[in-house]
């Protein structure tokens, strides 16, 4: 993050222009380009701009939806540019990859200097170097150079600085530094981008995310974990005003018939078994099963309801007074018929055209299995039967929607996240300060203190601190 050319580091690496375009120069230019802040800014802004696309255009919808809203031409362009799934296009992934390359190259290029300044610092600098700093002062105080240096060093240490000193014949040089962690933090944040992306890639290659619609009492095999999951119970809790408070499923994990773990999951409280997470994600009305159907039995001749019965799912009921045996054997929420396979199925999961299949056994002579419709009571009629059956209501069976996910990369993502938060917090609140002081004897019983300092940010605070420091130096005594 710190690109301000530092006078010191420039001294370290003298640059001699190479004749012609050699590989060395080319690779240096390449590093320069990939480590540049300009590239970082471009990527930040370009990713920000392109990320808006996916928030304006609905992602992952069906073709008709786009054509209806934007027209066919626009849709063709959407497909070409990947606008229907922006965040997984090669170019968006490429931008993220480039951001990783950018931050890694920056780390490679700039971190060694930070590391050096943590490990070994340059104490000796020229007087001109101090005088050339943005913050610098010159104070004459009485005393010997050793005693003044001693007092100053103590003052720096008291302020939390790390101090190095060099005592030479004609002068004492002090170097004080503080807050290098601010720079380390910036580089930590730079590395985190790659860590997060690696964790994300690991998750998307070796993890999975599935959605399961499960019914109470059923057992489902989880092939990815090689175990079974039984849904013992599903229920919904309500607030006083009728709003849904929570919905919950009691789940049992079975491994070759043996109960391993039982837990009631709810939204925000998943079950974890062998690295696979089961989340309470949603609920709804099943489209191929109901709990109870209410059926009116009408006498065809008198057109009067002779009886109203509640049929339970796939349980036969005997009505001896009417000489009837009835059962509800099937249900579809949105009736449709596949004529080639001769099969009834539910067109959608909405309860748009619900129908039940009745198995009627009348006086042991008339047997029929008609579909009767909630919305069209007169559609079917059993010829030889004395009765007409009407579906007048039903109690739907709730399914529990479970999100089933495994993400082996998640901990790496959290490590990256910790790095980015710690890193940018350090670099935001701690700033690197360096002070050089030269104490040169001058006059009969005094010394001249030359002090200069730099920081890479927070100039105002540093300016204040520096002003206080010069005032402090003025008060020093032999």
């Amino acid at each position: 993050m710190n690109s301000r050319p530092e006078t010191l580091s420039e001294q370290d690496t003298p640059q001699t222009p190479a004749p012609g375009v050699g590989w060395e120069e080319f690779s240096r230019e390449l590093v320069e380009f990939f480590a540049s802040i300009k590239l970082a800014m471009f990527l930040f802004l370009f990713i920000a701009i392109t990320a808006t696309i996916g928030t304006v255009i609905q992602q992952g919808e069906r073709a008709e939806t786009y054509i209806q809203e934007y027209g066919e031409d626009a849709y063709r362009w959407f497909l070409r540019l990947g606008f229907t799934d922006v965040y997984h296009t090669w170019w968006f992934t490429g931008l993220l990859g480039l951001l990783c390359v950018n931050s890694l190259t920056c780390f490679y290029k700039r971190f060694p200097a930070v590391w050096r300044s943590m490990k070994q610092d340059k104490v000796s600098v020229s007087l001109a170097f101090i005088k050339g700093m943005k913050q610098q002062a010159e104070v004459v105080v009485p005393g010997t150079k050793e005693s003044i240096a001693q007092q100053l060093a103590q003052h720096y240490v008291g302020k939390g600085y790390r101090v190095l000193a060099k005592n030479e014949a004609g002068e004492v040089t002090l170097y004080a530094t503080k807050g290098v962690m601010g720079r380390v933090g910036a580089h930590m944040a730079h590395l985190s981008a790659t860590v997060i992306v690696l964790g994300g890639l690991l998750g998307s290659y070796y993890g999975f995310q599935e959605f399961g619609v499960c019914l109470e009492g059923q057992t489902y095999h989880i092939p990815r974990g090689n175990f079974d999951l039984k849904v013992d119970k599903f229920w919904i809790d309500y607030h006083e005003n009728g709003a849904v408070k929570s919905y919950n499923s009691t789940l049992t994990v079975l491994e070759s018939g043996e109960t391993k773990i039982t837990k009631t999951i709810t939204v925000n409280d998943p079950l974890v078994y062998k690295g696979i997470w089961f989340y309470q994600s949603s609920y709804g009305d099943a489209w191929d099963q109901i709990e109870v159907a209410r059926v009116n039995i009408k006498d065809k001749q008198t057109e009067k309801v002779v009886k109203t019965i509640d049929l339970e799912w796939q349980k036969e009921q005997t009505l001896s007074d009417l000489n009837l045996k009835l059962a509800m054997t099937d249900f579809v929420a949105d009736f449709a018929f596949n004529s080639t396979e001769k099969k009834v199925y539910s067109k959608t999961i909405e309860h748009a055209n619900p129908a039940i299949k009745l198995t009627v056994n009348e006086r042991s002579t008339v047997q029929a299995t008609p579909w009767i419709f909630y919305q069209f009571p007169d559609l079917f009629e059993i010829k030889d039967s004395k009765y007409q059956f009407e579906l007048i209501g039903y109690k739907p069976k709730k399914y529990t929607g479970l999100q089933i996910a495994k993400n082996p990369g998640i901990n790496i993502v959290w490590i990256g996240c910790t790095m980015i938060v710690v890193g940018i917090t350090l670099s935001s609140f701690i700033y690197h300060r360096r002070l050089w002081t030269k104490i040169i004897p001058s006059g009969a019983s005094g010394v001249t203190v030359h002090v200069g300092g730099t920081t890479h940010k927070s100039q105002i605070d540093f300016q204040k601190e520096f002003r206080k420091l010069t005032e402090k130096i003025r008060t020093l005594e032999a």
Partner: protein
Amino acid sequence: MARSLFLFDMTFWLYLASLTLYVAYLFARRPAMAFAPAGHPAEDFDERDGAWATQLGQVATLVTVFGWMVNTAALLTRAFERLEHSGTFAPWSNQFEAMAYVSWAIILGYVLLELRYKIKAIGAFVVGIGFIAMGAASLLPYRYQTAEPLVPALNSYWIYIHVSVTLTSYAAFAMAGGLGVMYLFKERAEQRGSRSRFYAAFPDLETIDELGYKAIMIGFPMLAFGIILGAMWANYAWGGYWSWDPKETWSLIVWLIYGAYIHARMTRGWEGRRAAIYAVFGFLMVIFCFWGVNFLLSGLHAYA
């Protein structure tokens, strides 16, 4: 419910009063002393009994602090009401409460800033934004203002920390935006060589610039933390830490925008005017992320 709504209402009027006082403070005649730092000749101005800027400034600060205390009381009352009705006590569980919390954080930030730097002129801009946030909240229809029970997905301890951290970062960006506007005003006045007493109380451009930068440096890591807390919550509630839902995408966009700003500032030339314009632009993006997304785009956070 009526109790907290009354307090929220009172907060609104108190912030209006404090904004008025800060603006009046800018226009008020001030003693010659106050001009000296800005480099204006004192004799142009009336420095007799008419100079009552100092007193106005003191009253403005008092009213602001009082308003903030009422705002605190309103949030606390709402927290207790929530505890009774909806199983959580986070007083930032809907758009209205979130706005009231943001204005609370903005005003707190401003009061701390005034205590530390003793610059009252900033009040007209930053308290202004806090007031607008509170005003926009009170303009919401009544059904958005009540403490309805939380939907199951929100009913989690994560709401305490994820929402508050994110909203606090918004407040920091709001302060930076206000300081940006102030910078642009002051710069224009300087360019035109304005001698209006209005600008005399403004701090110098460098200070405004640096304070704005500081606000962003507080908001930036906070927003990162808030986004990551959101990712952790999402991972816990929905089974995926990132799903590119409009709200989270927009918060990332905002973060990237400020990330670009922070990097830009490292190179020369991104201080002063450019930085001020950028801070205002960034704040507009924050507003969109906070408001626009909820009302214009659909997604997982649609209830927020």
